[in-house]
């Protein structure tokens, strides 16, 4: 583990010092780090999923604490935990299906255990059903007891069946890690290709002779617009410069290099120009569970102007930016203040920073926030790598996602499980 510890510390430092720019890079590096953590974790024979989850959680908490505003880190950690649970479940159901367990023997084994979830025929049936069918609300609610039940049932099942299973178990332990690492690789691949997948949807959303407005710079937006250009759509782009980082200048340069007609405007001119704009397309820093967007500063102003002029406000976000948390006071809690020197030159204004007068407190404060919160009612459409969604749909998919992955709620879930399995057992038996 010393290797991973060094890697973890290195990454923690980078996060604390804000050396990594952009959620895609952060998400990718987090996933890669967790992959090495998983491969280095030594798993016991029993309850291996729990061990993996434990180690990932330990590292994940530290990463999230290093940069709480970078929500992509937390998203990736949660996705990896979900992957571990999913892989474990599918392995177990495959193993159980292969071993021809009888419902009766299992009930006898587990009836005495406290907090031991019941592995009934109904549960096996439900688990196998879930791997075969695409997830729906019903299966996800049924899945909850099973996914939490799996670590315990694997242990109880193993004990009761005796040594014939031990060979399967050790092969299964290696297989779990292997499967998890494969799935994490897929996740990294998804993160890498999110731009292409979003850009594929560009042609459906941009028609001829459109005028598009954007603010600041986002790689997703750049790829989106270039993809539309490739498909021979002709359109013009207004880029607002996005003070005080002036990333709009960068985006404008990129766009003109690729042959798009671009006009660079100042942020103050957005309201003046927006009446002549067909669509506003922007990137996001993070998308919250209620459909609200944490975006670069200035985008709330643009969204309000777009709403006033009935211009669609489209947000492009890779799925690593979708965060299952609800924003409380996002302007303050999910915001970072940058250096005032970007706004005022310290040398020029040194006389205003004089503490001497009156109450002895500085008369001049400078505020330079990095992010803005855009409420969901101002957003017309989200385009993610899975397609286009309404803001309220984002809220819905994350409700479902959240119920399926909260491992720390296991105690609460076990009560649900007992009632479910009893009812389910009656169904299957009859």
């Amino acid at each position, binding site marked *: 583990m010393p290797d991973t510890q060094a890697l973890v510390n290195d990454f923690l430092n980078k996060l604390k010092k804000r050396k990594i720019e952009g959620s895609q890079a952060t998400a990718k590096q987090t996933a890669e780090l967790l992959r090495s953590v998983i491969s280095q974790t030594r798993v016991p024979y029993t309850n291996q999923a729990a061990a993996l989850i434990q180690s990932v959680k330990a590292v994940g908490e530290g990463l999230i604490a290093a940069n709480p505003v970078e929500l992509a880190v937390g998203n990736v950690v949660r996705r990896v935990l979900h992957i571990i649970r999913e892989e474990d479940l599918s392995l177990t159901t495959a193993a159980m299906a292969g071993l021809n367990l009888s419902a009766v023997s299992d009930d006898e084994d587990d009836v005495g255990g406290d907090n031991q979830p019941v592995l009934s025929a109904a549960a096996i049936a439900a688990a196998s059903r879930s791997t075969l069918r695409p997830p729906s609300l019903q299966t996800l609610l049924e899945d909850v007891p099973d996914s939490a039940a799996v670590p315990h049932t694997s242990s109880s099942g193993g004990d009761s069946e005796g040594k014939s299973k031990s060979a399967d178990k050790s092969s299964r332990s290696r297989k779990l890690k292997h499967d998890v690492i494969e799935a994490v690789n897929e996740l990294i691949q998804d993160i890498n290709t999110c731009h292409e997948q979003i850009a594929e949807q560009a042609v459906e959303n941009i028609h001829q002779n459109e005028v598009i407005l954007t603010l600041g710079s986002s790689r997703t937006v750049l790829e989106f617009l270039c993809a539309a250009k490739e498909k021979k759509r002709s359109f013009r782009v207004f880029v607002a*410069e*996005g*003070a*005080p*980082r*002036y990333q709009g*200048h*960068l985006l*404008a*340069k990129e*766009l*003109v*290099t690729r*042959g*798009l*007609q*671009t*006009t*660079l*405007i*100042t*942020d*103050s*001119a*957005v*309201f*003046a*120009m927006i*009446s*002549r704009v067909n669509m506003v397309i922007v990137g996001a820093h993070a998308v919250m569970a209620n459909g609200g967007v944490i975006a670069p*500063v*200035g985008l*709330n*102003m643009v969204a*309000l*102007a777009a709403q*006033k002029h009935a211009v669609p406000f489209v947000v492009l976000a890779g799925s690593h930016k979708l965060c299952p948390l609800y924003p409380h006071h996002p*302007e303050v809690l999910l*915001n970072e203040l940058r250096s005032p020197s*970007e*706004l*005022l*030159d310290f040398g020029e*204004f040194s*006389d*205003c920073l004089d503490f001497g*007068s*009156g109450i002895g*407190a500085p*008369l*001049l*404060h*400078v*505020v*330079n*926030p990095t992010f*803005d*919160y855009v409420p969901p009612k101002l957003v017309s459409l989200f385009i993610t790598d899975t397609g286009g969604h309404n803001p309220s749909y984002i809220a819905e998919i994350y409700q479902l996602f959240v119920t399926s992955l909260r491992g720390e709620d296991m105690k609460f879930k076990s009560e649900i499980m007992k009632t479910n399995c009893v009812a389910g057992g009656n169904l299957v038996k009859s």
Partner: protein
Amino acid sequence: MKQPPQKKDGPPVASSVAASERGVDRPVEKERKKDLPPPRMQFDDESRVDKAKRRSLLNQPEARNRVELFRHLPPHKNGSQLPYLESKFFELHEMHPSVYKVGLQYLTGDTSGGNARCIAMLQAFQEAIRDYSTPPEKTLNRDLTSKIGGFVSFLIECRPLSMSMGNAIRFLKSRIARLPLTLSESEAKAALCSDIDRFINEKIVLADKVILRHAATKIRDGDVLLTYGSSCVVEMILLYAHEIGKQFRVVVVDSRPMLEGQKQLRRLVAKGLSCTYTQLNAISYVMHEVTRVFLGASSIFSNGTVYSRVGTASVAMVAHAFHVPVLVCCEAYKFHERVQLDSICFNELGDPDAVSKVPGREDVNYLDNLTDKQKENLQLLNLKYDATPSDYISVIVTDYGMIPPTSVPVIVREYRKEYLLI
């Protein structure tokens, strides 16, 4: 008689002078036409642009990459014209030196702001009138009017007129036209100079004092007041309220490329006000704690639209979204009977290079060294003004009192005659 090439300044005075010659029986259409705002110079019409170029004093460079939407507006003339104008000084024998000086100040941006420009122009005209002498065979009215017209067209070439200046010129021309013919030249000149003094005093200086008093009643202790850019009236209000002892905080919002807020910030902090400074993009962040927004205006149109520095509309919109009252402080002489729905029909274009260059920040000069191919596709737009819709404005503080935006055409109709008849 030399017709001004750009008919931007007031109704065609020639017609009124000609009519007074003809006597009482004037066709009714001329009367109605006088009330309509005059047609403006069309910059997208090639033939007219060529005509204007031949008559113009400034060497207008071909503006590269003009934004399509704004082809109807004149391109910006920046300070690079200065040496050219200086060399032409001795050729401009019709130009009075004080008018020339004011024109140069406009061109370089030394004088900016509606009130300052208007006062500078009127004082220059006063000087010109004092030095004026009627040539033989000409009447004072018509000759002086045409001279003023010549001055105005020079000033327009340096920088397009602001609404306040347009109204002041209209006032002056109507005063000249109404001079009784029995006055001697020196009496007429003295009358005109005193009229100009009264205009400045009543319409600007005293009006500002009245506005101060009204607006200060709207400031309570513990308020957080937001102001945008640099408006002289708002600055006066804040300093006055601070003097009479109200406790409040100021948030100064600034924007590129002019960064006017920095100058105002310096003046406010020097007087001891506690200020917060931020850029326009952060307005949603600061608006949570703001209790009142004070804005200045270049003009207010008859449909209640406020024509002011670009970015004002965004500030008013965000304030409206956060339920913060917006008070616009504007003297009544700036009201105009024109109507405007958006910021594109009429505006002023600024220096496009000011958008691409960020002074003082070498790390963000991404747009230096562009290839020709890149430059071909890139256009830079620098707007100076924008139009704020009237639904974002809570109240307008003028020297006639505190009025809602819907009362602006009433003031224009009722009181326009009053000041023309001073």
